[in-house]
Structure formats: structure tokens, C-alpha cells
């Protein structure tokens, strides 16, 4: 029978059962208990806290680990994805033996092993306008570790509607942003960014890459902020946007203000319900059609057929030099960012096929060249990834 040691101070009329720590828990959290900033009171607050972690990937990994280690009594995990080998460069909750398993199961196993005394709730589902309020309502704090704009706006709006703080973190390559939205009198995500970028204009990790440690650092900062909110100590990042640059190893801070005209959290909110976020972000259906409907395209098979026939085609590769080193179609490399200044290297009288990794950057290139007057220009549909799938499987995918 576990021996109860500490008892939470409760207010008169408090109906919650008094929380306490077992002797084993006192041992486990001793490094917290001997700190005046945490102490028994703080540790009991952690034990009674309920935190919902949305996403168990790059940001969710350190977040889940440190919240579980700290003894947060109830942790909810939301993720519908499956572990794959490209995750293991940064998603340190998982191991090689987890590849192919649902992330939520692998995450719960790992966290329960770290701390068997806490409650882990799993939601193997896509967070949506239909389920978000229901899933979130039982938790005190929500931590946003997601990887796409529609979900970020959904989480933000749901947190404002439910009155819950939203510990936000986001990353790109080697830069991160962290703040806390949804605090009373504090800004929300919409105060900062009223509208999302149209699909295709801001690269994602899959396109831009990410330094593996970066979500590790940002997610750990999110965990730190969450713990501070629970124990009520220190200065939380409310109204402060922390910017981190891992390459320069610099932190900067910008002021975030609540927008009194914010449609969601302002003084006269016009949006009081959750909306269709895919539509809000300009995405219709499964795949965002980044290419314009009249963009000339060529499939890998057709390209191969034309090359085999001996057609004189100029292959323009708009990727970066480090990608060319991974694999290439012997194309002429002009990275997309340099195309405008190097366009005079191209001969508009020749037939040009532009390609990149998946077909998005090359679509941009084709649109740009069309505006520059090029008429014999095609986008390789699906990029070098599709070439590997359909024509030459020896070409590595990355």
C-alpha cells in the first residue's frame, strides 16, 4: 500500500479530493520538491494538471517526454499518423522498431514506460471542427505541436472558444517561434496572423527540410512554458513571440498584442464557432492543386518516351545543389530562387522541361517563365519522386 506524504492545500468548500504524493512519487520528483519554485505545492499542481498535446511528432516528442517526466497527471495525445523512417531524424519518441506503428500507440507506450503513474489518453484521430471542442474540453492547457495551417487555426479558435491557453510552437529549417495564445487579455493566433498563406507559398518541412534538433529545442521550450503555467511561476510567453535561430544560436523577442478587432478573440467577435479550416486555408479536396489548370505538364513516362526518341529537350532542374547531389536527371541546375536573375541562361527557342522534387517548385518556375515569354515549357508532373516511381526505381527518393 503506497504511503501518502504531502497533501495539497485546498480552499474552504473545495470539493476535489485532496491530492497527495506517494512515497515513490516523492522520490521520483525529489529534484522538483527541493526547489522553492516548485516544491510540494507545485508538484501537486502538476499531478492534478491535464494537458492535451496535439501532435506527437517533432514538437510532440520532447513535449510529451518532459511533461511525463515532470509528473503532469493527465496527458492527452492526438495524432492519426503512422511512424515512418523519415520521422526518426527528429521524432525521438519513436525507435526503429516502431516504424509502421500508429504514432499514438508508440508514443503512449514510451511515455507510460517513462512514467507509469500518470494517465495517458490517446486520440487516434484527425482533429476537426466536429471533434475538437469535445476532445479539448476536459483539459486545462492545449499545446499545439501540429504541422499544418488549417489545424493551427482550428486549435487556436477552439482554445479561444473554450477559454484555454494554447502553447504554440512552430518551426522551419533551423528557425522556431514560440508563444502562448488564448490567455485572458492576451492575443490569439488570429491577432498575429489573420489569414494563412495560400498553399504553396510557404514551404513546409517536407519541402524545406528541418534541422532535427530544432523541434527538440522548440518543443522543450513549449514544455517549459506549460509547466510554468501549471505551477504559476515565472513569466510566461503571453504577448511575447520568442524567435529562435539555431544556426546563429540567437533568441529574439517581439511584442504580440491582442487585436481588439480580432474576429475570434476581440471585443466584438464575429466568429464564435469553428469553421471549415481547409476552406479557410484555400485547400480543397485531398491535394492542394498548386498548379494552375492551364499549366503545361508532362508525365515522367512521356518524358522518358520523348528522350528515348531522341527529342532535343532541355531539362531544367530548379532544386538546390545539395538535392542535385542526392539524385538528378542530368538536368541543368538553376535553383528556383536564382531563376529570375539567371533567366538569360535559358534559350526560349528550345523545348524546356522543368522539374524539382515533387513538382511544386517547378510549377512556380514554369509560371514565371511563361510570364517571361517562354512558350515551349513544361512542368514534370510529380517531379523526380514520380520519375523514381514510374520510370527508374533506382533513383533514390528523399
Amino acid at each position: 500500500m503506497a504511503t501518502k506524504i504531502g497533501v495539497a492545500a485546498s480552499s474552504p468548500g473545495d470539493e476535489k479530493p485532496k491530492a497527495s504524493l506517494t512515497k515513490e512519487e516523492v522520490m521520483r520528483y525529489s529534484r522538483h520538491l527541493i526547489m522553492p519554485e516548485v516544491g510540494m505545492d507545485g508538484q501537486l499542481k502538476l499531478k492534478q494538471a491535464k494537458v492535451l498535446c496535439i501532435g506527437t511528432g517533432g514538437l510532440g516528442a520532447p513535449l510529451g517526454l518532459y511533461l511525463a517526466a515532470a509528473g503532469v497527471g493527465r496527458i492527452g495525445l492526438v495524432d492519426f499518423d503512422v511512424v515512418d523512417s523519415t520521422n526518426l531524424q527528429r521524432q525521438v519518441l519513436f525507435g526503429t522498431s516502431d516504424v509502421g506503428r500508429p504514432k499514438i500507440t508508440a508514443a503512449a507506450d514510451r511515455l507510460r514506460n517513462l512514467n507509469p503513474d500518470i494517465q495517458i489518453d490517446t486520440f487516434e484521430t484527425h482533429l476537426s471542427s466536429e471533434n475538437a471542442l469535445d476532445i479539448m474540453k476536459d483539459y486545462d492547457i492545449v499545446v499545439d505541436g501540429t504541422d499544418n495551417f488549417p489545424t493551427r487555426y482550428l486549435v487556436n479558435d477552439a482554445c479561444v472558444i473554450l477559454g484555454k491557453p494554447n502553447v504554440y510552437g512552430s518551426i522551419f529549417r533551423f528557425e522556431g517561434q514560440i508563444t502562448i495564445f488564448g490567455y485572458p487579455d492576451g492575443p490569439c493566433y488570429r491577432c498575429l496572423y489573420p489569414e494563412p498563406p495560400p498553399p504553396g507559398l510557404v514551404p513546409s518541412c517536407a519541402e524545406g527540410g528541418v534541422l532535427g534538433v530544432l523541434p527538440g529545442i522548440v518543443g522543450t521550450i513549449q514544455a517549459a512554458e506549460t509547466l510554468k503555467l501549471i505551477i504559476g511561476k515565472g513569466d510566461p510567453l503571453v504577448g511575447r513571440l520568442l524567435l529562435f535561430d539555431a544556426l546563429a544560436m540567437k533568441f529574439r523577442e517581439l511584442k504580440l498584442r491582442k487585436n481588439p478587432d480580432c474576429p475570434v478573440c476581440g471585443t466584438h467577435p464575429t466568429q464564435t464557432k469553428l469553421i471549415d479550416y481547409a476552406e479557410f486555408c484555400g485547400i480543397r479536396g485531398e491535394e492542394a492543386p498548386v498548379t494552375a489548370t492551364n499549366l503545361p505538364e508532362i508525365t515522367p513516362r512521356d518524358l522518358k518516351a520523348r528522350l528515348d526518341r531522341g527529342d532535343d529537350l532541355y531539362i531544367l532542374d530548379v532544386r538546390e545543389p545539395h538535392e542535385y547531389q542526392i539524385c538528378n536527371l542530368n538536368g541543368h541546375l538553376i535553383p528556383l530562387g536564382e531563376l529570375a536573375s539567371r533567366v538569360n541562361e535559358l534559350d526560349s527557342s528550345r523545348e524546356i522541361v522543368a522539374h524539382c522534387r515533387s513538382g511544386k517548385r517547378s510549377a512556380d518556375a514554369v509560371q514565371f517563365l511563361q510570364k517571361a515569354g517562354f512558350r515551349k515549357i513544361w512542368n514534370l508532373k510529380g517531379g523526380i519522386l514520380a520519375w523514381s516511381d514510374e520510370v527508374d526505381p533506382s533513383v533514390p527518393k528523399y
Partner: protein
Amino acid sequence: MAVKVIIPTPLRAYAGKQESVEVQAKTVAEALTALTGTFGELRRHLFSDDGRLRSFVNVYVNDEDIRYLQKDQTQVREGDTISIVPSIAGGARA
């Protein structure tokens, strides 16, 4: 006034890979015009077709959001830092 404009990572490819650019300007508008004058590709990422700053891009002078100052007419002083901060979400393919 010499001011430093910090270029966020997602836009560095369009600014000659530089992380910051020094420009001469008296207001934010002048600074951004000078910047996009040198780096034409940046223009469509910062401004929509009607010439307005895109809503997913925020601009700060030192640590203050220009929307709460005088917007693009916010004056800048020698040594001020202008930060361009676009929204980023990480992760999934768009």
C-alpha cells in the same frame, strides 16, 4: 537612415541567401521598397497583387508590430532593425 532588415529563413532564397540586408530608408515603406528593388523575387512573397503587405507576413520595427504603430509609414531611425516574420507551420506538405 541605415536600417537592418532581417530576412526570415523561408524568404532567404529570394534575397540572395542573406539573413539580413542593410537599406537606407526613413520609413518602413521605403525600406521594403528598397529591399524589393534589390531583390525583385521577394516582392510577390511580401506583397499581394494590389500592393498590400500579405496578411501572413508581419513586420516589426525593433520589437513592435507596425500594425500598432503607423503601419508602413512607421518611421525608422539609424540602427533600427526591421524584422519580417511570416507565419510558419512546419511539417506537412502544404
